[in-house]
């Protein structure tokens, strides 16, 4: 028996797999964080705080209700609908797709690592990246929105502000999970994500007016009940904000986690059939 086989026998299967998850996870973080091309992500996530900071510097006589609605619009329409969607598109589509483009995926496929381990580790790395960046963006937006006037500060310290922040952060994290899993799975099916991404975006947008059973097949369906402030359903925005049949928060969280798990199972099944054939790309 070769020396490397002895290591496997000594370590046991599950501890070894956990170590492999950790190694692939770190490798993935190194890959994504060292790349200049990923600078668009913080730019995307931190542009609202900059705008809100400008608003805070210029605003006078702010009303809590108005500021809360502005923040709700920023988070619901900008972060959850657009920024996190496209952020996850860019990050999760490249977890496997990027390695195919860079022609390095075969190193992972030739290693004694189950492909499911590769999927899981990459998904965790993508999740950590997006949750950290967008979570920070949401936090900064929230802080800047309420810190510049006394009523806002009181709302955060003694009012419901902290609960609002927790809800936004939870919704942001769950959005990263749901969109991330969906885009990771999508990257294992198609090479060019533009058309599927547009279809997915439209699906998420118009989902509120579809029958309930179809609504359950979207990420936003599970996010809406978690949001602490409802935007007024007026005009075009009604399409994005209306909740036809509200879901209890606990069911929304478990529903989104179940959705994520199901999509990841599909991704694991798909990656086992994935072939490394760079020349055909």
């Amino acid at each position, binding site marked *: 028996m070769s020396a490397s086989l002895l290591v496997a026998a000594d370590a046991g299967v599950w501890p070894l797999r956990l170590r492999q998850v950790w190694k692939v996870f770190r490798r993935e973080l190194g*890959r994504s964080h060292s790349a200049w091309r990923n600078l668009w992500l913080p730019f995307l996530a931190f542009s609202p705080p900059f705008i809100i900071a400008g608003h805070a510097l210029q605003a006078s006589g702010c009303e809590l209700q108005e500021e809360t609605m502005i923040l709700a619009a920023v988070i619901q329409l900008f972060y959850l609908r657009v920024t996190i969607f496209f952020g996850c598109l860019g990050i999760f589509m490249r977890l496997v797709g990027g390695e195919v483009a860079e022609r390095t995926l075969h190193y992972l496929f030739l290693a*004694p690592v189950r492909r499911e381990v590769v999927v899981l580790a990459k998904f965790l790395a993508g999740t950590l990246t997006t949750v950290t960046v967008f979570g920070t963006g949401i936090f900064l937006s929230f802080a800047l929105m309420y810190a510049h006037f006394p009523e806002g500060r009181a709302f955060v310290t003694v009012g419901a502000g902290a609960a609002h922040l927790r809800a936004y952060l939870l919704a942001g994290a769950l959005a990263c999970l749901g969109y991330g899993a969906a885009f990771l799975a999508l990257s294992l099916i198609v090479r060019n994500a533009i058309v599927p991404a547009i279809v997915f975006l439209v699906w998420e947008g118009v989902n509120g007016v579809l029958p309930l059973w179809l609504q359950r097949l979207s990420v936003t369906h599970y996010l809406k009940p978690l949001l602490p402030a409802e935007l007024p359903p007026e005009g075009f925005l009604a399409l994005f904000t209306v909740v036809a049949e509200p879901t209890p928060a606990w069911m929304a969280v478990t529903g989104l986690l179940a959705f994520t798990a199901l999509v990841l199972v599909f991704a694991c099944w798909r990656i086992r059939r994935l072939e490394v054939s760079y020349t055909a790309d």
Partner: protein
Amino acid sequence: MFEDVSKFYGDVLGINNVTLSLPPGITSLVGPNGAGKTTLLNLMTGLIRPSRGRISVAGMSPDDPEVFGRRVGYCSQFDAFPAGVTGRAFVRGWLHLFGMGGARVEREAADAIERVGMTEAADRKVAGYSKGMRQRIRLALAISHRPEILVLDEPLNGLDPLARADALALFQALGQEGLHVVVSSHILHEVDRVSDYVVLLSHGYVVAEGPIHGVRTEVTEHPMQILVRCARPHVLAAGLFAGEHVVEVKVHPDGGGLLVRTRDAPAFHRLLNQIVLESGIELEAVAPADDDVGAVYQYLIGADTETV
């Protein structure tokens, strides 16, 4: 072990109806570009899946990476590396996936890097390596976990003559250590020197396989060429023409021997012995002149050996 394996890329044929059983030792896959060598090796290592048929390597399925990846090392043709990595970090990162501890990883990585002669350059970034160095560091990765089966796709590409000689010596050493080595190459005369077994591919089909000498013997329609180094070659040539199996006799350009083409090698050797005994000609050497992969390949496929 390939059992009736075919691989199609859409409508394009990769390999077709390949049934192969490769023995221990060093096996060469030889064929021109597009013959199906890389397809065969990628199928063998699980990077692609067969459209039809079954593949097993030493009883293992490529679909079980946890076992397969430990026992098989593959140095593919894909000349790409993770961004910003050094040669040593590249090998270390690979070994970490085997669950080895830090000290063991350092030791095994250093050992593999030393075997391919890359110790001095190991801490430089791969982006600054020459093609030959990149080839060698990928070879180091493929052998670093001490596999039982080593698969090498065009491993001599990009290597200078000295590095090629070193690489071939390494393959031979690995073969002698008991590894099964499967190597594809278009540099026929070089892999020929180290191979125990040869598989000739053309247009996705296996056209011949077996020990190199056995394959050559099977090519009966092409007379074997035998080089005889001797004194008085003209006397020997006159005697050899008596044999019906002798097709052609040419005096070697340096005048120190003959190039004989015969349809029946054993009969030729009997006749040669008889002439030598009767005439007292001193023989220096008798050796097949075309008993190599290149000649066999040219006979079977008709390709120019310079280009395959």
